[in-house]
C-alpha cells in the first residue's frame, strides 16, 4: 500500500490533519493504536482560549477560534462550539501587573479582552465567590469558549473518510522506515505501508514515535486528572481558571461541570491511576471558588496526559534531519484549542509547500542552544 501521508495518532490533531490533507487531494492513512479520542483529546476540558503570554499562541488561538466558529458548517456536523468566555482570576498586585501587560499584548493583536473587578466577576458568573477565590480582579475574554472534543474529532473523521482517508484504529505503528535521511513509510500489523510523509501526532506518546524514526524530542508525558459532576441546568457560561491555583472548570454543553487542577501527587510518565489526593484538592479548591457546588455530586474522575515541551509551546514542522518526518506535538495541554490553525499550517506546507513563520519559530530546532521564550499562561 502506498500513501502520500501517514498520520500517527487519532486525536484532534491527527484527525484534523487527515481531513485537511485528504480534502486537498492527498491520499492519507491514519493509524491509531487504540480508539479514536483515546488519548488526551477524549480526556480534556476542551476549552478554547486566546488569552496567552506569547504572541504566537495568541495568534494561533485567535485564528483557531475563527476556524472553530465555522467548523460545524464546514464539516456538516454539530461540534458543540460555544463562546461563553474565559475568566482568569488575578490574585495579587504582581499578577495584576502581569495581567495588564498580557491584556495589552492580546488587545494589540485584536483579541477582545479586558480586566474586570470583583463585582463584574460576580455578575458574569454569579456562582463565583471572589473572596473565596482570593481574587482582586480577573481578565475576561468573551470570545473564548469551548467545543465538544468527541463531536469535533468524530466530525473530522467522518469528513476525512468522505475524502478518501483510510482510518485504522487498534493499529500501532511499530517501525518507521527510512532510507538515508528520508522517511519511506511505516510498518503496522507486519505490513509495510509506503508514504512520502509521516506525521507524529501521537500526543503524550510522541516521544516514543519520534524514537522510531531515530529522533530525540524533549517532550515529557505528565499525568493530569479531571472530574465531572452530575448535570445541572445552566448556571454559568464561562470557563474559570487561575494560573496561581492551576484550577480550571466550566459547565459543559449538557450541564455537567468539568474541571481539573495540578494534583499533589502529579508525576511524569504513563500512570493511569487516579489519585485520591487530587480528588480532595480539587473538591476543596472548587468549593472555595464556587461554594454552592458543595451540594453537587461528582460522577467521574479520570486521568489523561499533557505532552509537555520545554517551553510549553507546540513543536511543529518538518524535521531538519529526517526529511518527510513532520512534528505535530508538544502541545502541553493546549492541543485541542490550537489544532485548527496548527493543522492548517502543516497541511498547507505538506500539500502546497507553503511556508509559514510559525514553522520556524515553533520548529524543533528552537531548543538547540538558544534562549527559549516560555509560555507562562498554563493551567490544569
Amino acid at each position: 500500500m502506498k500513501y502520500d501521508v501517514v498520520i500517527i495518532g487519532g486525536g484532534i490533531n491527527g484527525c484534523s490533519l487527515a481531513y485537511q490533507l485528504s480534502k486537498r487531494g492527498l491520499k492519507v492513512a491514519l493509524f491509531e493504536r487504540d480508539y479514536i479520542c483515546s488519548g488526551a483529546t477524549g480526556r480534556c476540558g476542551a476549552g478554547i482560549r486566546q488569552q496567552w503570554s506569547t504572541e504566537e499562541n495568541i495568534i494561533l488561538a485567535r485564528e483557531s477560534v475563527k476556524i472553530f466558529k465555522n467548523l460545524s458548517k464546514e464539516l456538516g456536523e454539530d461540534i458543540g462550539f460555544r463562546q461563553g468566555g474565559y475568566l482568569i482570576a488575578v490574585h495579587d498586585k504582581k499578577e495584576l501587573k502581569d495581567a495588564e501587560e498580557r491584556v495589552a499584548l492580546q488587545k494589540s493583536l485584536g483579541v477582545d479582552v479586558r480586566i474586570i473587578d470583583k463585582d463584574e466577576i460576580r455578575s458574569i458568573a454569579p456562582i463565583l465567590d471572589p473572596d473565596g477565590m482570593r481574587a482582586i480582579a480577573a481578565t475576561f475574554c468573551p470570545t473564548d469558549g469551548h467545543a465538544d472534543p468527541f463531536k469535533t474529532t468524530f466530525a473530522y473523521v467522518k469528513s476525512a473518510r468522505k475524502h478518501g482517508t483510510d482510518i485504522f484504529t487498534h493499529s500501532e505503528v511499530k517501525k518507521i522506515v527510512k532510507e538515508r535521511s528520508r522517511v519511506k513509510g511505516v510498518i503496522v500489523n507486519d505490513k509495510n505501508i509506503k508514504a512520502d510523509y509521516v506525521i507524529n501526532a501521537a500526543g503524550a506518546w510522541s516521544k516514543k514515535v519520534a524514537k522510531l524514526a531515530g529522533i530525540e524530542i524533549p517532550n515529557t508525558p505528565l499525568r493530569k486528572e479531571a472530574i465531572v459532576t452530575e448535570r445541572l441546568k445552566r448556571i454559568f457560561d464561562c470557563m474559570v481558571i487561575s494560573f496561581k491555583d492551576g484550577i480550571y472548570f466550566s459547565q459543559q454543553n449538557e450541564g455537567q461541570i468539568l474541571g481539573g487542577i495540578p494534583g499533589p501527587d502529579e508525576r511524569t510518565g504513563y500512570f493511569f491511576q487516579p489519585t485520591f489526593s487530587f480528588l480532595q484538592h480539587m473538591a476543596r479548591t472548587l468549593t472555595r471558588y464556587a461554594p454552592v457546588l458543595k451540594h453537587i455530586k461528582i460522577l467521574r474522575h479520570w486521568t489523561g496526559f499533557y505532552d509537555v515541551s520545554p517551553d510549553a509551546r507546540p513543536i511543529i514542522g518538518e524535521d531538519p534531519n529526517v526529511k518527510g518526518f513532520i512534528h505535530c506535538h508538544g502541545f502541553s495541554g493546549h492541543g485541542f484549542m490550537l489544532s485548527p490553525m496548527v493543522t492548517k499550517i502543516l497541511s498547507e506546507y505538506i500539500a502546497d509547500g507553503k511556508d509559514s513563520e510559525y514553522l520556524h519559530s515553533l520548529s524543533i530546532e528552537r531548543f538547540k542552544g538558544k534562549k527559549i521564550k516560555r509560555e507562562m499562561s498554563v493551567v490544569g
Partner: protein
Amino acid sequence: MSRKIVCRCEDIDEEEIIKAIEEGYTDFEELRKILRIGMGPCQGRTCIPLVLKILAKKTGKKVEDLNKPSFRPPVIPITLGSLSGEDE
C-alpha cells in the same frame, strides 16, 4: 413500536446504538463518547452489558473479545462538600 431503552441516564435506545455502530463507531469507548452512554449517574451499570451485547452481535465478535470500558471512580456519586471534608 415502543423504544427499547438501553441507557436510562442518557435516554439512548437500541436503534440509536445500532445506527452509530453502522456509522463506524465500533469500539465501546467510541460509542460512549459519541452517544454519552454510561456517562450518567449510574456510570453504565445498566447499559454497559447491553451495549456490549449489541456491539458483539453487530460486529460478529464475541463479547469477551471486545474492548471493555474502563471503570472510573468514584463507585457512587459523592458530593464535592463531603470530599472536601465539610459537613453537608
